[in-house]
């Protein structure tokens, strides 16, 4: 398709650098918002206020938390493997930020006489790029847990390994249906293909599978077995503190944002509005951010609702329910696509 060949190649170098900085900055600013939102919303759902002391309505609480974490002393257990212990959080944060780059916040705009796409980069292998970085993100958890030299971390990391591998398959297969329907791997292409109908209607099963698997991929409740505070202290990040812990924390919440963005893009029409409303181009990022915030809210809502799964339940759910469903969904979609084209 012509879209694939064109997009991403006509932007001059300074636009690309500017875009990278802006997207990184936006991502960096969104994470504290999600942090405070999670604590406030979960507080309300549990009959309490949540943080309300730092700043107006506790709005500066994440800032205080980050400051506290960053000024803490760096230390590591004597049993840990120093080099890996230090780079594991970096892997987590790197993959999260890298995955954030492909979320399209808007269509191609004309700014300063240049054609600028409102996204970090429109890779022609969109979902594959996402899964590639998702797979590397698993090293962040795995190495962090293993190199800590602590049994809790190790157990958390092992669980994380099994969980991420199990659910990545279903997550990928859930997107196959969309890719076949849209006939493109480019995320902007997928959004443009949703002009008639958002994909969560024809691909409803795929949407549910993707959302469920995303909870497991981001290690969020009810699939937060890698952390499992009740049994593993803190899971893979038990031995981490200070800035390194902040990195893991940051990566987790950025992953939530990334997944929300991908769901928005792939199933909920990205920057498109229903009923044929075509707002000016500068509204696009606001629409995307609004839709993303809905899914981020859903993540928080589910965390306040569902209890953590048992390990065998997690495994049997992933392999016996999600994977067959995802396969069936891909198969049925393939047949329908062949029949209708």
């Amino acid at each position, binding site marked *: 398709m012509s879209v694939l060949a064109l997009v991403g190649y006509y932007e001059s170098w300074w636009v690309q650098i500017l875009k990278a900085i802006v997207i990184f900055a936006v991502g960096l600013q969104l994470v504290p918002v999600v942090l405070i939102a999670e604590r406030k919303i979960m507080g*309300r*759902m549990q009959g309490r206020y949540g943080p309300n002391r730092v700043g107006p309505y506790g709005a500066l609480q994440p800032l205080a938390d980050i400051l506290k974490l960053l000024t803490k002393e760096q230390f590591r257990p004597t049993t840990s493997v120093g080099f890996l212990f230090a780079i594991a959080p970096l892997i987590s944060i790197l993959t999260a930020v890298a995955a954030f780059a492909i979320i399209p916040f808007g269509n191609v705009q004309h700014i300063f006489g240049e054609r600028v796409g409102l996204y970090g980069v429109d890779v022609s292998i969109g979902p594959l790029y996402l899964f590639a970085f998702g797979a590397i993100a698993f090293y962040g958890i795995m190495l962090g847990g293993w190199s800590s030299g602590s049994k809790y971390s190790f157990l958390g990391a092992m669980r994380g390994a099994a969980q991420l591998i199990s659910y990545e398959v279903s997550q990928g297969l859930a997107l196959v249906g969309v890719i076949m329907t849209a006939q493109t791997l480019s995320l902007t292409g997928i959004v443009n293909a949703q002009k008639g109908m958002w994909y969560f209607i024809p691909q409803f099963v795929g949407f549910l599978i993707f959302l469920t698997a995303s909870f497991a991929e981001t290690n969020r409740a009810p699939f937060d077995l890698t952390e499992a505070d009740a049994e593993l202290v803190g899971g893979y990040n038990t031995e981490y503190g200070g800035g390194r812990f902040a990195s893991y924390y940051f990566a987790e919440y950025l992953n939530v944002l990334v997944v929300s963005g991908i769901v928005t893009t792939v199933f909920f029409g990205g920057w498109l509005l229903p009923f044929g409303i075509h707002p000016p181009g500068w509204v696009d990022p606001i629409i995307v951010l609004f839709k993303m915030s809905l899914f981020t809210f859903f993540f928080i*809502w*589910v965390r306040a*609702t569902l209890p953590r799964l048992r390990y065998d339940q997690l495994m049997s759910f992933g392999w016996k329910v999600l994977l067959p469903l995802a396969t069936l969904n891909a198969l049925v979609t393939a047949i329908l696509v062949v029949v209708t084209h």
Partner: protein
Amino acid sequence: MSDPTSEPENPAPATAGASATATLNVGRWSPGDDVIVVQRTPAPGTGRGAWRTFVETARGLKTTFGRIKEGTNTISYPEEKVPVYPRFRGRHKLHRFEDTGLEKCVGCSLCAAACPADCIRVVAAENTPENRVSAGERYAAVYEINLSRCIFCGYCEVACPFDAITMGHDYELSDYDRSDLIFTKEMLLAEPLERTPLRNEGE
């Protein structure tokens, strides 16, 4: 339902085992009235089980969302305080006679004797015509309560024959130094800052 051979109230249909009542009454033994029929949920792994999981998850989500509307139960402590009951046992108070201004305490040390935590120290002295402190013969020259030891049992106020010491309502007693928690007679006699709201009748 003493007779096991008696006919059940709902006679089993011809196709035995078709309904829950029928399966219960198979054979000669009737379980009687007080049997609890267990309602089994759909087995996990079946279609109905999956549907039930979906519905119950949605119900849970509805519940948590509904909590937002119900508001919070938090009492923001330093700003809001739970009112105490009239008989709440907080920090001690020593009392004076309202008309004469003399101290009620006569230095008998019964409170110190009753104290299980041994936190009260009383040193008595004789009243003289020039220096009349209490209404009795003697008065407490030193009256100290070590509040870091006190267990707020209230035995001292029970032991006191003159109602000179009572338990007040003040419970905010933290301090930076242990020695500051030894309350002297002047501190106990002083009108305490009423920092604690009192619970009203029927509240």
